[in-house]
């Protein structure tokens, strides 16, 4: 039987419902306990009819696919039916005669309050069901009964029941329409699984049959789908934001991914986790957050250059929305260059680096942006002691095109002007950055992403010398799904970084020093699912580099500065790669990849030749060859191997092995131990060989307490070759032949990383301990001079013992606290060991390089986060974050130096943060 959908409008309906709802309270007080497990709906109703006085009316053909899962105690009939049918296409009415009508509507996803229809239609009015269904307020809830419905994929009557079929589709946030990356799907009972890519896309190949697919994603409510898989087909899944109710609900997302995934040494932090970490100036900081992970260290606090498993800071590929960022820091490293409000998550690959990445030998830090809200325009912003930010997002074309625009700016200039100390009045320091992300969904198979990023920094420190640097990045990314087995991502982009230093202190000497590097990227990445056991990944990358190694030019017409402009360098780096993820048995998986990369330095260029077998100096230059434009001067090429093996043992235990080799064709030239604004980059050329790295690692993983606690131990050994170090007094800027000032260094690193992580519960967080060593050695016969007479010496960031505790406790949904601890051995330094007199003054003679260490580092941070109230109707949703960075006020030593004061050599230790630093940040959403 059916009801007419014509008649009364929604406004009228609403009034009637109120009255009827009240009356219904009195009527349906009989309570039942119900339990059903995958029970066909007809059976379920038969049982109800036997046990209650209710009679059901429905169309059997419409309900044949609906299965019921319910376990409810002391519920009235209307509550039971609401649970069973909520959000499905079906609705029910209960009339005074206790007749229950099950009807089918045209639209999906409805949440109706209990008792919504639990009354009669005695007046004979017909209701306009579709209008109720479209009521926006109720649209945001996911149905329980979608989970109960058996979804048929493919036609039952077509094809055989043997062999495999593939399901693909997107997983999205039902509220914002944003795709959910790294959501995990597991099909029971086969236990085959898939994880969504950064676009929320997944593809899962399974033998034909019936499955329960369980879906989980961090921060989202777990859901499931019952699927009868007859043939290839689509399955789009929307997930609901996890809003904890007052009852204890445990969210377990990715809970087995550490065991089942093949990735080793991969760390992922969601922006939610990053926001919980206390920070110095109140701004959630991507780069600082990864320093809490095992295997990641830095030289000190005033740097966002980071070191991964013994690699130097230029050996990390930092990608923001697939754009290479050459300087990822603002304001001397006190801030990282990424606006936290536009970030979705951060992935750090430190061991098994997927074959699609290359070009840096230590790690890949992949920072993914969010995609704008598809449903409505919203904003998010914040005010902290030194910066402010605002991000606006929303649909351009609803459900099709979205935008996300974010900006940040510091007001440190203003603070400088107001400091009552004349030293600063001629100083300035500040930054801003700006992001645009546009996503357009043509159809289910084509998605276009446009990303643009711009950042600018400037500072002047009580001199007339002004430093500026900026990043500019733009890319276009197209995701195309050929079919449910093959999909691809194509990217074209341009990344650019430059800095300038200008000075007009003496106008005759006024100069401008400039450096820039640009790269054009083309990437194509394919994923092909051959069958449930094999997933292939292959693609081609190409990068065309163009860099101006340095120019020094007069700033005005009276300046006598001679223009010194180094010739432009250009090169082409290309790679093809192919990888296969092969599940040999359920317990044994192998991922094997090969990446063949090649780099060519291109003309025009002049290259010096040197006498064989003697140290390279100005004097040993024998010849200079000039190459014409576009000519391939020197090509380096080689295969890079990426292999990892995972073996699962019983009791949530697994073992993984990995081996990786990588090559790097671009080198950072820096005489300081950290990333500084005046660092330049250099392409490999006939005299500068590419850097080479190889890493072996072994990991043991065990989950305890039903996967609530993850434990892991990873061991690694890494070799580095052709890493560039500098001769004493090396001239890095404006050097026509840098090869005379650098030396090849080789090194090795090894370590063990222990981690215990609790992802869920009121108390969550992790404890990590790392033992690691990084040793370098200069044994380049062409160096002329060697550091420490060619013996191994510890790298600047060699810190053997590192411990971190990150803990977060949620008192309620609104209040949470974080308490973090960080400890590390002091970094190595070179200390004075003797005094002597030279040119009338006392001087110091230094020890072997890095022969001593600064005092150990310890820091405790605390933060308290208050979410605003959860009333839906308010102008802005506010949250406050307050905390104390360096709670104990310990003066951690950043560096140690010695100066002559009068006739004495006096040592000083310098701390970046010399006391506890409180902060308050205000964030709002609208």
């Amino acid at each position: 039987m059916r009801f007419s959908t014509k008649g009364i409008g929604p406004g009228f309906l609403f009034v009637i419902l109120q009255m009827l709802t009240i009356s219904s309270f009195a009527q349906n007080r009989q309570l039942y306990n119900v339990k059903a497990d995958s029970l066909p709906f007809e059976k379920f109703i038969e049982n109800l009819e036997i046990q209650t006085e209710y009679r059901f009316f429905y169309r059997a053909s419409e309900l044949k696919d609906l299965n019921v899962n319910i376990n409810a105690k002391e519920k009235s009939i209307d509550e039971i039916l609401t649970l069973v049918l909520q959000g499905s296409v079906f609705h029910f009415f209960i009339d005074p005669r206790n007749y229950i009508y099950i009807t089918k509507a045209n639209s999906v996803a409805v949440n109706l309050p209990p008792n919504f229809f639990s009354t009669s239609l005695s007046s004979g009015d017909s209701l306009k069901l579709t209008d109720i269904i479209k009521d926006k307020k109720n649209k945001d809830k996911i149905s329980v009964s979608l989970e109960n419905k058996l979804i048929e994929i493919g036609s039952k009557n077509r094809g055989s029941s043997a062999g495999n079929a593939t399901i693909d589709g997107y997983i999205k946030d039902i509220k914002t329409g944003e795709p959910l990356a790294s959501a995990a799907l597991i099909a029971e009972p086969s236990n085959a699984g898939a994880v969504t890519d950064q676009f929320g896309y997944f593809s899962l190949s399974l033998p034909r049959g019936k499955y329960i697919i369980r879906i989980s994603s961090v921060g989202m409510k777990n859901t499931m789908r019952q699927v009868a898989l007859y043939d290839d087909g689509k399955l789009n899944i929307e997930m609901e934001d996890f809003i904890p109710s007052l009852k204890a609900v445990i969210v377990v997302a990715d809970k087995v991914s550490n065991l089942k995934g093949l990735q080793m040494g991969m760390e992922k932090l969601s922006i939610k986790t990053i926001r919980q970490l206390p920070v110095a100036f109140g701004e959630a900081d991507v780069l600082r957050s990864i320093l809490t992970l095992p295997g990641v260290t830095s030289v000190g606090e005033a740097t966002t250059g980071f070191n991964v498993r013994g690699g130097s800071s230029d050996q990390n590929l930092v990608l923001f929305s697939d754009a290479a960022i050459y300087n990822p820091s603002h304001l001397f490293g006190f801030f990282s260059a990424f606006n936290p409000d536009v970030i979705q998550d951060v992935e750090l690959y430190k061991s098994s680096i997927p074959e699609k990445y290359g070009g840096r030998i230590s790690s890949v830090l992949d920072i993914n942006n969010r995609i704008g809200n598809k449903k409505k325009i919203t904003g998010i912003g914040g005010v902290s002691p030194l910066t402010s930010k605002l991000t606006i997002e929303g649909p351009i074309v609803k459900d099709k095109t979205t935008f996300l625009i974010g900006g940040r700016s510091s007001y440190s200039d203003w603070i400088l002007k107001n400091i009552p100390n004349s030293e600063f009045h001629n100083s300035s320091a500040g930054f801003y950055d700006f992001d645009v992300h546009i996503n357009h969904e043509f159809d289910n198979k084509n998605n276009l992403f446009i990303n643009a990023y711009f950042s600018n920094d400037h500072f002047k420190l009580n001199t007339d010398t002004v430093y500026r640097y900026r990043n500019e990045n733009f890319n276009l990314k197209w995701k195309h799904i050929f079919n449910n087995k093959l999909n691809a991502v194509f990217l074209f982009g341009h990344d650019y970084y430059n800095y300038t230093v200008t000075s007009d202190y003496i106008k005759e000497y006024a100069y401008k020093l400039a450096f820039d590097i640009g790269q054009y990227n083309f990437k194509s990445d394919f994923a092909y699912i051959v069958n449930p056991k094999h997933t292939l990944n292959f693609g081609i990358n190409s990068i065309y580099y163009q860099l101006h190694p340095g120019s020094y030019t007069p700033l005005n017409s009276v300046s006598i500065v001679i223009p010194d402009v180094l010739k432009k360098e250009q090169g082409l780096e290309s790679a093809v790669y192919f990888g296969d993820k092969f599940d040999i048995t359920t317990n044994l998986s192998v991922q094997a990849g090969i990446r063949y990369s090649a780099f060519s330095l291109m003309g025009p260029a002049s290259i010096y030749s040197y006498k064989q077998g003697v140290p390279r100096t100005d004097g040993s230059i024998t010849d200079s060859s000039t190459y014409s434009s576009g000519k391939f001067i020197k090509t380096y090429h080689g295969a890079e191997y990426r292999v990892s093996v995972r073996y699962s043992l019983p009791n949530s235990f697994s073992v993984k092995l990995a081996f990786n080799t990588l090559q790097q064709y671009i080198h950072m030239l820096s005489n300081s131990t950290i990333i500084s604004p005046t660092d330049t980059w250099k392409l490999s050329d006939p005299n500068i060989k590419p850097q080479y790295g190889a890493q072996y690692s072994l990991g043991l993983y065990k989950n305890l307490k039903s996967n609530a606690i993850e434990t892991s131990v990873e061991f690694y050994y890494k070799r580095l070759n052709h890493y560039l170090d500098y001769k004493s007094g090396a001239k890095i800027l404006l050097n026509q032949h840098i090869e005379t000032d650098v030396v090849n260094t080789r090194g090795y690193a090894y370590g063990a990383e222990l981690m215990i992580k609790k992802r869920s519960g009121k108390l969550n967080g992790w404890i990590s301990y790392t033992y690691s060593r990084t040793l370098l050695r200069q044994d380049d016969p062409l160096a002329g001079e060697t550091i420490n007479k060619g013996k191994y010496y510890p790298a600047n960031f060699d810190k053997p013992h590192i411990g971190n505790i990150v803990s977060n406790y949620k008192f309620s949904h609104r209040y949470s606290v974080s308490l973090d601890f960080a400890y590390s051995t002091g970094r190595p330094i070179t200390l004075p060991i003797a005094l002597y007199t030279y040119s009338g003054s006392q001087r110091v003679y230094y020890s072997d390089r890095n022969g001593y260490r600064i005092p150990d580092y310890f820091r405790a941070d605390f933060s308290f986060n208050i979410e605003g109230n959860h009333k839906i109707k308010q102008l802005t949703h506010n949250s406050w974050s307050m905390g104390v960075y360096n709670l104990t006020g310990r003066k951690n030593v950043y560096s140690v130096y010695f100066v002559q004061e009068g006739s004495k050599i006096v040592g000083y230790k310098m701390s970046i943060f010399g006391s506890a630093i409180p902060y308050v940040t205000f964030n709002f959403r609208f």
Partner: protein
Amino acid sequence: MTKRIPILILLFCTISVLQCREKYDPPIIDSNPDFLVVDGILVGGSDSTKIFLSRTRKLSEGDTSIVEKGASVVVQDANGNTIYLLQELSSSPGTYGIAGMDLIAGNSYKLRIATLNGKSYISDPIIFKNTPVIDSVNWIKPEKDVTIYVNAKDQQNNTRYYRWQYEETWEYYSPYQSGYIYDQANDDVLPRNPDDSINHCWRTQYSRDLLIASTEKFSDDIVINQVVRTIPYGAFELGNKYSILVKQYTLNKEGFDYLQILKRVSEQSNSLFSAQPSQLAGNIHNSVDPNETVIGYITASQVSSKRIFIERSEVEPWGYSLACATRFVPDNPDSIRFYFQEGHYPQYIPLTYINGITSGYFAAEPACTDCRILGGVTRKPDFWQ
């Protein structure tokens, strides 16, 4: 830029209301590598060459040099013939000097050293360089401090790497003139002989910082306003009359690099973007064991010098004054012995005699009347105008 970076740290410290810099005593390192240190410039013409030999010492040993005495120091020509022998100065052990070496620009020379412990050292060939004359030495007082600059140029564009040293001398008077002298032996106060006057002195001081500059980045070989010396407001040096003699030398590129690194490691404070401390190999080696570390880089060039004078009246207001109190010492043996005898602190010096109801001496502390206490000598230098 590095010099300015500490300001940045100061800035962040200010924002966060804290102190970021603290004294640091490194772990006591008792090892003394005991290296030979060779310091000096081979100077041609009438000027004298001084080579200072010393040894490295422990960090805990303070600022007294361990000088290398009794060495033989000679200058050889390109063919290895010894052409000059340097003599150890009796006034300054460890310093070996000679005046008026006739060295020819463009020729190369070697310095050979034989130490008492039987080791011998030889320098790489050192090319003797011409040095252009100093254009000018001038000074300004923009606000309070006085800054002295040197300007130089080489029309031939050959110099490129400059080094300067200076000798500064200032004339000063003690606030009170002493007309009497206490004769400790006879316990008596006698009138002071005018030749023994102790209230007018000249003090000389030598540059301690490494002053170097390069014009390699400029089309013209011109040094503009290179700061030589900054005298802080109110300093003693300009209390009366001041003179500075600026000496200019030419360096080769390697010598410049050596000194620049030495300067960077030992004179500039550390910074956020600090480089690793490092030591360049100098140009002197043990003639048997090339691995022995020898510190120092010897260059050879002509010297050109220029002297200027600055009167206090030119820099007024100049806040220097030495305030002193006088004391009356009654003319009786007990008082005289008490105040004037060695052992009393301060040991007063009689200024003038008052003959009255109570006769006695007005007396002052030594620093107020004996100008030699402040480091000067009473002999007027020959160049003083």
